[in-house]
């Protein structure tokens, strides 16, 4: 099997494993800096998706599952909830619908940091993107491959095999 050879290939293993940590770190960094410099929830989410995809191609769906070890449904739900609450929150507190708060806060190590509730919204976006892409990639990866029948022919269950 091709898959087995890939998994046993030490170069692939090392490269993928180390780069995964890097990817995750970069994703978080991009997510948080997105408000001021290129980046943001969409890109960060897609980076995680790329990590999942990479892991999935190299080691299979089960390994990919472990990348961001939260069930996709929770990711989607919490992401939507977080975004919606930052939208509705101000409205409930008597301010304009979707009005974000921002300010500057002095932190001991980082110095003055500009904060904004918009970042929370962005985190929600990030979670939704990760959730969606994880759902898509994992469901496709775990789907049984059926050897395609010729036209008009019935496919039989013993011609199926697992892709991963």
């Amino acid at each position: 099997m091709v898959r087995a050879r890939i998994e046993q290939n030490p170069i692939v293993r090392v490269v993928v494993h180390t780069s995964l940590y890097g990817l995750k770190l970069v994703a978080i960094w991009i997510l948080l800096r997105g408000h001021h410099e290129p980046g943001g929830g969409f890109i960060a989410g897609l980076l995680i998706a790329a990590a999942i995809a990479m892991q999935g191609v190299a080691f299979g769906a089960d390994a990919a599952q472990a990348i961001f070890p939260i069930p996709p449904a929770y990711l989607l739900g919490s992401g939507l909830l977080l975004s919606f609450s930052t939208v509705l929150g101000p409205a409930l507190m008597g301010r304009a619908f979707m009005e974000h708060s921002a300010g500057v806060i002095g932190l001991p190590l980082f110095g003055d940091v500009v904060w904004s509730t918009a970042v929370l919204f962005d985190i929600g976006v990030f979670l939704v993107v990760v959730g969606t892409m994880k759902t898509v990639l994992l469901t496709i990866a775990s789907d049984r491959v059926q050897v395609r029948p010729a036209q008009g022919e019935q496919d039989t269950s013993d011609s199926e095999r697992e892709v991963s």
Partner: protein
Amino acid sequence: MELLAALLIGLLLGVGTYLLLERNMIRIVLGTMLITYGTNLMLLTSGRLKTGRAPLLGGSDIQTAAEGGGGIVVDGISYVDPVPQALILTAIVIGLATTAFSFVLAYRTVQEYGTDDLLELRGVEHE
């Protein structure tokens, strides 16, 4: 640059449309992808190109030197239009999701109906 972009857009949309009119489902999905690229580029071009800095305030290090002109001038610095960029950013991500969906739809159709020929997949005549 706009002229080059316009020709490129025409090519992408034209080839995309050509693929969209095919009978094979994979080619149709490929066609939609090309059309997505073309449309994104079109949006960006309609806001004019390279008229100033990237829309990042506060002197970031990624920005390129200001060249050209006719951009949106704020505090003496000319920026390119940020609105199309925001539109395209969402379009790219949605495009990915729809591509994924179309692919899955395509292969599920093949599994269920045993063909990826749209002509063969036509419905019955209207009564």
